[in-house]
């Protein structure tokens, strides 16, 4: 549990951070340190330099407009969970943030740190895909935007380039839209508190019928996946328990993740049970 020797640079600005990354091939960004530091202690990660962006003010803060919620990279899980603005404008995000790990982790861990890690058992990636989040990324050539579904490439792999910084995340302020409801449920691993399976469900109702459905399952596959067959099965239907059950039965996600605590078969089963429950909650909330 002792890391290899590593240099440390406290970045004074976003530009400084990017330049330092550019110059140092083995450098890694450090924010909350809740994924990187444990990996370094196990010597699974051996960066030559840590570029600490934890003190760059422009990377923090939550901004809410009528249509959007913009969350700065350094915003901690505890801040997201406690934000009354997020609770109003994008309640599912606050609901999920409150379920991440434990208070100590929530007080230090950051949203961008979690997303850039692309851990298959993390909570946030599932939410981002469900919400069609847009990630703002800055590199040597300036800023670009990446859609959540194109951001997560594989286990612990994202579309971020080595010298890019994920600066903020934009999600829709669906809480301000009538007829929208969402819910996030997780089966918590009893040891790690990561999501064995996490399900984000969003439902939009128009005239008492389902106009729009999102079901995203995390933990069963390398990256979270839309349960597309469930989503399409519900469109245009009345949001009854029977219809939701029938739709969820159509789920065809092939679970590939499994461990000594929960096999892939069990995860696939959990995904269905939790999808149904999350959809029921989302409908209830959409009705208001």
């Amino acid at each position, binding site marked *: 549990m*002792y890391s290899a020797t590593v240099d440390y640079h406290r970045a004074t600005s976003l530009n400084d951070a990017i330049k330092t990354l550019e110059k140092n091939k083995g450098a890694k960004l450090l924010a909350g340190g809740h994924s990187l530091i444990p990996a370094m202690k*196990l010597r699974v990660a051996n960066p030559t330099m840590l570029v600490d962006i934890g003190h760059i003010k422009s990377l923090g803060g939550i901004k809410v407009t009528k249509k959007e919620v913009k969350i700065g990279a350094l915003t901690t899980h505890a801040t997201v969970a406690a934000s009354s603005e997020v609770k109003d404008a994008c309640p599912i995000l606050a609901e999920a943030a409150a379920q991440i790990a434990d208070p100590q982790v929530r007080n230090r861990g950051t949203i961008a740190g979690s997303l850039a890690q692309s851990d298959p058992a993390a909570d946030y990636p599932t939410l981002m895909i469900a919400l069609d989040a847009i990630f703002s990324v800055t590199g040597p050539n300036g800023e670009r935007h990446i859609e959540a579904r194109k951001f997560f490439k594989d286990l612990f792999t994202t579309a971020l380039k080595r010298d890019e910084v994920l600066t903020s995340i934009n999600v829709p302020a669906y809480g301000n839209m009538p007829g929208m409801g969402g819910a996030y449920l997780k089966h918590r691993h*009893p*040891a*790690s508190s990561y999501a064995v399976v996490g399900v984000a469900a969003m439902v939009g109702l128009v005239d008492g019928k389902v106009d729009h459905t999102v079901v995203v399952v995390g933990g069963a596959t390398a990256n979270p996946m839309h349960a597309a067959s469930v989503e399409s099965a519900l469109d245009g239907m009345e949001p009854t328990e029977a219809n939701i059950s029938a739709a969820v039965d159509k789920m065809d996600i092939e679970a590939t993740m499994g*461990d*000594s605590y929960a096999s892939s078969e*069990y995860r696939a089963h*959990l995904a269905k049970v939790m999808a149904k429950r999350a959809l029921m909650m989302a409908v209830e909330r959409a009705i208001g």
Partner: protein
Amino acid sequence: MSKYVGASIKRREDPRFIQGQGKYVANVQMPNMAYLAIKRSPYAHATIKSINTKKAAALPGVIAVFTGQDLIDGGVGKLPCGWVVPDCKVPTRWPLTVDKVRHVGDGVACVVAEDRYITEDAVNLIDVSYDSLPATVDARKTTESGAPLVHEDIPNNISYPWALGNKEAMEKGFAEAEHVVELELINQRLIPTAMEPRAAVAQWNAPTEEMTLWTTSQNPHIIRLLLSAFTLGIPENKLRIISPDVGGGFGSKIFHYPEEIIVPWVARKINRPVKWVATRSESSMTDSQGRDHVTIARMALKKDGTITGIHVKTWANMGGYLSTIAPLIPTAIYITLLSGLYKVEGIYGEMWGTLTNTVPVDAYRGAGRPEAAYLLERLVDVAARDLGMDPLDIRRKNLIPKEAFPYQTPVAFMYDSGDYHRLFDKAVEMADYKKMREEQEKARKDGRVVGIGIVGCIEASGPAPSAVAGSLGFALGPWESGVLRVHPSGKVSLLTGSHAHGQGHETTFAQVVADELGINIDDVEVVHGDTALLPFGMGTYGSRSAAVGGSAIVYAARKIRAKAIKIAAHQLEAAEEDMVYDQAAGKIHVKGSPDKAKAFGEVAFAAYTAHNLPSGLEPGLEESAFYDPANFTFPNSAHIAQVEIDPETGQVEIQRYVAVDDVGKVINPLVVDGQVVGGIVQGVGQALWEHGIYDENGQLVTGTLMDYAIPKASDFPMIETSRVETPSPHNPLGVKGAGEMGTIAATAVVSNAVLDALAPFGVRHIDMPLTPEKVWRAIQAAKRN
């Protein structure tokens, strides 16, 4: 008379702990200190072909690198097994292995360097060439032909067989039986996970040839003796062991570990202080582990529920080596407990201690007794279901009546005291068992899956009469010592051979002494954990401190009182037999004349000035006592739990937990509650989450706290505790052990509750831990049938 004993006094040690001001081994810091790390095997079973230390030794900052052979050449001895049963084959165990590695984490070399980070770099530069071998991990399969041999000189990987009981009576019980239940049970491997990892710091004083070793031990004197006599060869009078604040042990810090040899050996070799602190990963793969039994358990009954026979066959996994007292656990504190709270004549247990390529297994909270309680209480529940009886009724039917005490079981133990019917009555009343069952009926009609577990459990605590322990295989005698040093001012230092690592002795022992001497508790300081300050002591394990260590202190206090009476009588010019030691007032006065009195402080001062003492009486006021118990004590319990299961996910929720324990007389209810609740939580951990899993290659799959799930406070309802007090008749405090009863009852009661919930599905048994997937699968399988 008792002012303090029986009172819920807040733990005096807690302010320093909760403010982070405890002093642990890792806090010991000295100038010129060097740091040590161990090169450990990534293989469970492999031959060591060569070890190349050149690159590591050449790394700047590295002071030296040593292999197992270097240590042997430097005079270290093999690690002894301190509890050897008849026909026991004790495998050879060096501090660092030289021929083969026998479990993942087995040490092969060590590095000492200028800082801890360099040691880690250097460890990675040691090049060990291995020939990997097939591994054996299962307690029973390891004895089958074709299994790889862990030690070539131990055939079939069987270290020892053991059996106890009356085989004929058992066979008769089964012959007469109208019903027999049989269960094959796995009591899974557990990883102790004390909050503080093990650590050792050694300081060699070259001119005086004295060694001081700070180590995370529950019994520093035993470690000193083993180091001196077997492993390090420094005489006891030149060897000081200090176990300062220790952050939890649960048994795992009883044992003599390789690092306790390596660290002082290296400190002497390089003539510098040396520190080693285990990482959490090292703790997981080197601290002795718990449980790991495969058992075939059978119970014979009459149709009315009367138990006529119990037969148990167990394969107990000992791991790659025999840890310090490993053979004790599945023998003399396992099979001896198979009578439980029940009057049964035909009991016979047999077992085999087997070797595998896993971390050694030894005592872990409960140690043998939870394994016995679990299988017995599972058998009783299955029998009740088969016979159509309520689990409460079948238990009541078989309880040992209170008139039968002291009660001789057919498996060696003589139970000291108890009132098991009262125990059950109280638990049933507290839980409102009848109403629980009614509500369960209603819930089932609503499609909810609710279960109620009820168990009655026995424990043998407070080891032990030394002659009995000796006859069972212990190389030492588990008595205890205590010293009371009354200072001239009347303040008292209480020196105890017991060791506190969470138990609260600094409070409870002071309560006992303050009452015995009639002084203020603030005038008593408890000293423990340093071989230089104390007479020989046997340490803390097996819930023995109050019953054995506490009794030694009582007898020392009574010697102090006797001497104080002599001094007061002399000074008051009265006859000794006319004196009254008034403990409530803290004074010694002449019978009938309370004004003719000497305060305790006055007597203490007089003892040290020695101006006016009875002729022939030695000055000073200090007494010691060595107490050898007449018997174990036998705490007992009735626990009731209610669970609800989510039938779609298999998730278990504990809704209620009622614990009624008889731990004899209670010194401090707050501390006992803490022990009971802590024990329950640890037992529930085994029932629902904890599992040290080795794959077929001997790799520890659950080697980190990301995978190995220990209980969290948020997983529990408020645990409701109460007590029945039947004082132990054979120790002066009337106390029994309180540290392990919770753990012993909890696995059984939670398992029974879960299986009761699943009864409508026809699920008969699931092995622990009762994880959601296992429960869900059991429901699925039952539905298919």
